């Protein structure tokens, strides 16, 4: 998964030396929008009543707003909310939305599944479907509600009662929110069941013509297939649910006093060889993003092999990312970015291999044993890119080396003894997350303050290497002239997994936050616009919100091909994007119009909420936990937008009432 931002709530809120905090930006925004609102209100009132009267009118509206919000009645809000819910149900939009949802789930299973990661396809399908339906639904009910009431004059049945404008606006928002939340919750539970049902499957072991299970000896030259290092033979399962698994017989060699393998049901046989016990057990290899447990009962030809339900689909990994990633070039000079291997996509930085000083250092802070469920072996996960500059040895994958080291921060006192581990080498595997178990006790050396070697031995990862909570993990490419690519999120320690249902719920909270913004936007716009225009405005805001990144790319001044007018001109005159236009008055005019348009679009992208920050589908899809800071940031963004939009709606309706 591509992770580019690693939010820290406090840093996001109050900023640091490199960026301004969101809190300060919000304060400035409130000030700016208040001034703009007052000025705009004064301008409109001036046209209607003249400047002197306008000042009085604006002051009255602002002064009236304070009691309107202080003396708000929750009873009345919920009464209006109840009416809004009844009205929405009467419109049958919810029924239609739910029907579409049910139909998609009923027949969606026909078209999805299979592939490398069926779990991702399933999650994507339900998340995207729910998001689309729920946003469409709330957009429709919020956009049509108030304008219809005003048009049909049914608003007077409410406004003639002792109800405040703030209560009318809030009541509708709350009503639609309750309705949307209920529907979202139902959709979420059904979706979870749908995903679970769709992915649940088991397998049977393959048998030969005589009905017997045949384990073939592992021979890569004969089969071309790579097997685990300790595999001695293997077979496959039958093809089911669009895939099959390799089943290996692996030899697990343990000391006489050591406990047997945890998965005792998979043991085929055991024998004593000298002072060791060799367990031969079955191991189901990963395919389509999951694996199975296998239980063997009986011996020889009478053996029965039972495969468990799929495991590995429903994960909520909690990664411990490094605080910082520093690349070092061939000469050992630190760089902010890794080398480029010519990819357009610059997410991964590369280091080159062999006898150079090139490496990547991951600097971990707050590295503590408390975060891990078991500290005997710490799971380190890596997803590295590989670039070969020459063919090399086809049969062997590119090798990487890991080294762990203690380190101190910039203004901290240097540690009296610095620990450095031996290099742990392994073959990289592209496109999958490799899990490497780092033992807590690892062999290494101790160095003094001057870099002198003090002693070698086996040391504790937490107590020796990271007594100050800081740990440095160095990644090297071990093969000459080959390259390894990585980003900050490519290497992390996997902390204790979180419950999957909790992550799923967090994913839906993301949709809920989007829904709330759409409701507030719909209600707010509908206080002064007609239904179709409100709907159009909301759709535009959603599109801008979801595609803000792409739209922002179009607003950079040096975008090739120019703005809309220039692009159209190039289109009809068949001029390519790079061809310079000969200077003329019309070309200058065209460019000025484009500049204006681009700056307007740029401004809009900054005003509308960035929905991608509230969208956690990727986290669910790739099995990563939506962390608290990320959720809190998303919640604060949504809350700020909802508050602002509600106030805007209130003032607009209040002004409209005054006008009426």
């Amino acid at each position: 998964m591509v992770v580019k931002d690693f939010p820290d709530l406090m840093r996001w809120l109050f900023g640091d030396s490199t960026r301004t905090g969101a809190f300060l930006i919000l304060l400035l925004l409130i000030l700016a929008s208040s001034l703009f609102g007052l000025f705009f209100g004064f301008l409109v009132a001036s046209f209607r009543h003249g400047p002197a009267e306008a000042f009085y009118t604006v002051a009255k509206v602002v002064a009236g707003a304070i009691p309107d919000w202080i003396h708000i009645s929750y009873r009345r809000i919920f009464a209006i909310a109840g009416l809004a819910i009844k009205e929405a149900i009467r419109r049958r939009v919810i029924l239609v939305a739910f029907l579409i949802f049910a139909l998609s789930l009923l027949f969606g299973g026909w078209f999805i599944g299979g592939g490398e990661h069926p779990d991702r396809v399933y999650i994507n399908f339900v998340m995207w479907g729910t998001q689309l339906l729920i946003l469409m639904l709330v957009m429709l009910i919020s956009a049509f509600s108030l304008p219809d009431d005003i048009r049909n004059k049914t608003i007077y049945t409410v406004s003639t009662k002792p109800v405040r404008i703030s209560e009318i606006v809030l009541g509708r928002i709350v009503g639609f929110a309750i309705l949307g939340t209920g529907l979202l919750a139902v959709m979420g539970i059904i979706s979870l069941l749908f995903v679970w049902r769709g992915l649940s499957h088991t397998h049977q072991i393959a048998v030969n013509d005589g009905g017997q299970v045949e384990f073939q000896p592992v021979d890569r030259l004969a089969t071309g297939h790579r097997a685990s290092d300790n595999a001695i033979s293997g077979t496959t399962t039958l093809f089911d649910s669009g895939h099959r698994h390799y089943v290996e017989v692996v030899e697990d060699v343990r000391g006489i006093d050591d406990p047997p393998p945890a998965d005792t049901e998979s043991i085929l046989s055991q024998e004593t060889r000298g002072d060791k016990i060799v367990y031969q057990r079955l191991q189901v290899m990963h395919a389509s993003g999951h694996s199975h447990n296998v239980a063997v009962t009986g011996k020889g030809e009478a053996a029965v092999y039972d495969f468990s339900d799929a495991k590995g689909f429903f994960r909520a990994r909690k990664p411990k990312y490094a605080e910082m990633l520093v690349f070092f070039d061939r000469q050992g000079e630190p760089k902010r970015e890794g080398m480029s291997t010519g990819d357009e996509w610059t997410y991964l930085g590369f280091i080159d291999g062999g006898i150079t000083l090139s490496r990547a250092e991951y600097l971990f802070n707050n590295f503590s044993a408390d975060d891990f469920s078991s500290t005997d072996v710490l799971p380190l996960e890596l997803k590295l890119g590989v670039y070969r500059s020459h063919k090399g040895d086809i049969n062997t994958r590119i090798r990487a080396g890991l080294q762990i080291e203690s380190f101190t921060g910039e203004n901290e006192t240097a540690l009296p003894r610095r620990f450095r581990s031996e290099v742990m080498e392994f073959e990289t595997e592209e496109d999958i997350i490799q899990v490497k178990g780092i033992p807590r006790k690892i062999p290494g050396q101790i160095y003094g303050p001057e870099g002198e070697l003090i002693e070698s031995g086996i040391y504790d990862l937490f107590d020796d290497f990271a007594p100050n909570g800081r740990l440095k993990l160095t990644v090297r490419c071990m093969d000459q002239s080959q390259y390894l690519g990585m980003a900050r999120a490519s290497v992390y320690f996997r902390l204790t997994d979180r419950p999957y249902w909790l992550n799923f719920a967090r994913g839906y909270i993301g949709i809920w936050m989007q829904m709330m913004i759409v409701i507030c936007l719909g209600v707010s716009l509908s206080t002064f616009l007609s239904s179709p225009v409100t709907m159009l405005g909301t759709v535009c805001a959603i599109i801008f919100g979801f595609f803000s990144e792409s739209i922002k790319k179009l607003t950079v001044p040096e975008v090739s091909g120019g703005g809309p007018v220039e692009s159209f001109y190039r289109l009809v005159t068949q001029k390519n994007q790079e061809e310079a236009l000969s200077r003329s008055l019309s070309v200058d005019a065209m460019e000025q119009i484009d500049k204006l348009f681009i700056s307007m679009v740029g401004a809009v992208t900054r005003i509308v909420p960035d929905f991608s920050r509230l969208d956690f589908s990727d986290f669910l899809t790739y099995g990563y936990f939506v962390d608290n800071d990320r959720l809190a940031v998303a919640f604060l963004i949504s809350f700020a937008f909802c508050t602002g939009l509600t106030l805007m709606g209130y003032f607009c309706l209040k002004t409209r009432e005054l006008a009426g």
Partner: protein
Amino acid sequence: MNQSSSFTRKVIYIACIGGLLIPLSLVSRPATRNSANEIKDPGGLLSQMRDANDLSPAKLSEIDPGSETMKLASLGLRGIAVNLLWMKAIKAKEEKEWDVFASTLNSLVKIQPNFIKVWEFQAHNLSYNVAVEFDDYEQRYHWIKKGIEFLTQGIPYNRRDHRIIDNLGMICGQKFGTADERFQYRTLFRNDDLFHDQMSQFVDVDQINTPYGPDHWLLAYLWYDRSLNMVENNVDGERVQKFSKDMLFYQKKPSQLRNMGLSLRDEFRADEFQQANWRRAYEEWLAYGNRPIRWDRDPSRPAVSLEGLTTSLQTVQNLRHELDKLAPGARTQMLSVKVAAFPKEYVALLDRPVDSLDDEELEKMRQLDSVLYGADNLDELIATTSVTTNDKRAAEEIVGKINVERFKLSLGDSLRSTMNYDHWRDHTLVESTDKGIEARQFIFDAVELRRQSLLDEFMVREPIAGTQTLYPGAIQKFENSFSDWAQIMLEYPGLREGPLMNEMIDVINDYMVVREAAGKDGWPDDFILQDVIDFRFGKGRAPDELPTSADVAERFETRGRLSRLRLPKRPNIQFVQPIEQE
């Protein structure tokens, strides 16, 4: 507006809609056929136009509910949906999100199922561009298969288009068989029973079995066979348009057998199966040579066959004799000056029957013909200037026929050269002979012995009987092979240049390395293929820098000088006991 006027308006709307439906149904009325499948009614105009332009979905493909649902779900915004999906696919590929890329392609082809280029382009993307992104050959193999599986999805949608089938043949053959990792791919393929099962839905996979296991070249062969069958026999009685040039289209199927032979000889010791396969490859290549091929730039011109060279030459010769009867002595007179410049034995070739000439003589005769008749059409000149008025018409007819045959000869030459036809014909034939098989076995054995470091002759003593047996080493095996190849080259001089010889140069280089490793001179004084090396040098194609006869002679001279200077000889250490030959 009152209620009744609103009702009236609605009625008018419905009537208008109904009225418009009548002409619409008339113009799109489908064709009807009788029990003999003959067209009874050609249908409406729209229907006829759809048929004429092959746009009818029912004809293009099976109507797939999934695809139709996707098209409907795009609510008439199919173009936009397609663009969005293409952009998503491009982004996923750029960001190396391969599973997103693959699933996006699956959605894309549901909306564009009859656009062949989409299938071709994206399958190529999967099998070539995505596969190569992976470091591990097993993953590469997996993504090549993904491209193949992707293409097979397109078959039911495009049952009357051979291009998808051709692409399947290309990926199954070339990608698995010519990549750097071909040995690994071919091994994986042999053991991939699941993939064979998948392919069995489309081709008879029993036919891809060999004694070494299933072979992907045979799978490619079956795909091309299917494509050829579609073009030649149509599908469901409907014509299948051929989108490829005759010359290229018809060579694909026989080439796969040849490619299999080339792959197998590097992997296994030559045996009866390989010999039979080479024979089959030769026969199919010959059949390709006998097939009439049309010129793609002007299909109205007469078709030529690559094997028709002798026939055309003989026809030209006969026609010229006929023309000479109408204008006795004219040709001799006109050619007298030009002919005088050539040796007599050259000129005599012109009068000999074509089928009595060997390859070398035929080549000389063609060169002469080209000089004599190439610049100005001498036959036309004879017909216009030397024939009596009464015979003019007959002479013109003969000249017309001569021109047709000369066109065939010229086009045939060009096609044969493009396809390297003669070389592959002789090459496959040679490989299928006992001599060729023996030569291959020697090379295979030599390579195996070299791997075991048994470079030169070695003695093995029987532990019980105590007898000693001398076994040949890699050097002797190489030399045995060269001896066979020398005989073959003598019989087929055309093979002294081309892919076979290039391969032989590699073998000779290996031989030199082995000799040097065994402490001998890298190049023997009496190398049996020296003539071939000299021939290559004479053609100016010797970047391999192998020693020519002149180089060897110079070496002799140097040795002589060293001997005169009484320089000490190189020590000759004998590690082996005197040989007791059985």
